[in-house]
């Protein structure tokens, strides 16, 4: 968890979420964790990667708040946390709803404005 300039904690900024999801191995790790929690050893097996390499990816996912570690001290199972993904998706949805209003407005303006291109390509 990091702190921003206002002293608020950022459990996973949108930026960190994007960066974490940009890598195919990390997306595969999340896909695996979406089926259920798993230890680092269990995660490393299907990826043909060393445990340190997997741990490195897990660290990025943890920093983005997408993965947490369970209580079992020996297995230390990793768990998929969906909250940051939800936050990112909903922010983008809110932006998109503004742009959909703009789509509708543009359609209306196109209908009322004289055409710039005389070649009118209407489907018959």
């Amino acid at each position, binding site marked *: 968890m990091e702190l921003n*300039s206002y002293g608020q904690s950022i459990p996973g*900024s949108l930026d960190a979420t994007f960066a974490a999801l940009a890598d195919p191995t990390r997306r595969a790790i999340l896909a695996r964790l979406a089926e259920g929690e798993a230890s680092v050893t269990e995660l490393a097996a299907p990826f043909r990667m060393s445990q340190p390499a997997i741990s490195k990816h897990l660290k990025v996912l943890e920093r983005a708040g997408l993965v947490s570690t369970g209580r079992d001290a020996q297995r230390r199972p990793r768990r998929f946390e969906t909250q940051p993904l939800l*936050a990112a998706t909903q922010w983008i949805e809110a932006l998109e709803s503004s*742009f959909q*209003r703009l789509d509708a407005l543009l359609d209306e303006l196109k209908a009322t404005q004289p055409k710039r291109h005389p070649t009118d390509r209407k489907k018959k």
Partner: protein
Amino acid sequence: MPEKLKVDTPSDREIRITRDFDAPRPLVFDCWTKPELLRRWLTGPPGWSFVVCEVDLRVGGAYRFVWRGPDGTEMGMGGVHREIEPPERIVNTQLFDQDWTGGEAVGTLVLTEKEGRTTSTNTILYSSKAARDGALKSGMEQGMEAGYVRLDELLNQKRASKN
């Protein structure tokens, strides 16, 4: 159908929002700059609307937006135009009244047209990485809020239809 919205962070201090529109560039430019058109789409989360929407579209000219939410809360922002090149480019300064972005940001809107379709690229450069992250965080919280409001509406509709 228009291309999907894309949001990314080209650098530590920037957020970039890209979206395609099925309309020629001058129309899209008008929608980003004329108050009577801005009032129809840049209205914020559901239930919010403009109370002030003023644009002095000249280099050095100011703009000012104030929105009001369903509970009477107001949110304002504004700035000054640095570059105006119709119909392809606007650079302006951006400062929210609550200043959660830790100082002034600089917004660059670039419009490119191809076969009657326009790609809008909106890049916001913040004063620091912390400022950028603060803006992302507040944007996400508002997005969450809007999501919950929609969820409430949906649940109310479902409840109403059951009665």
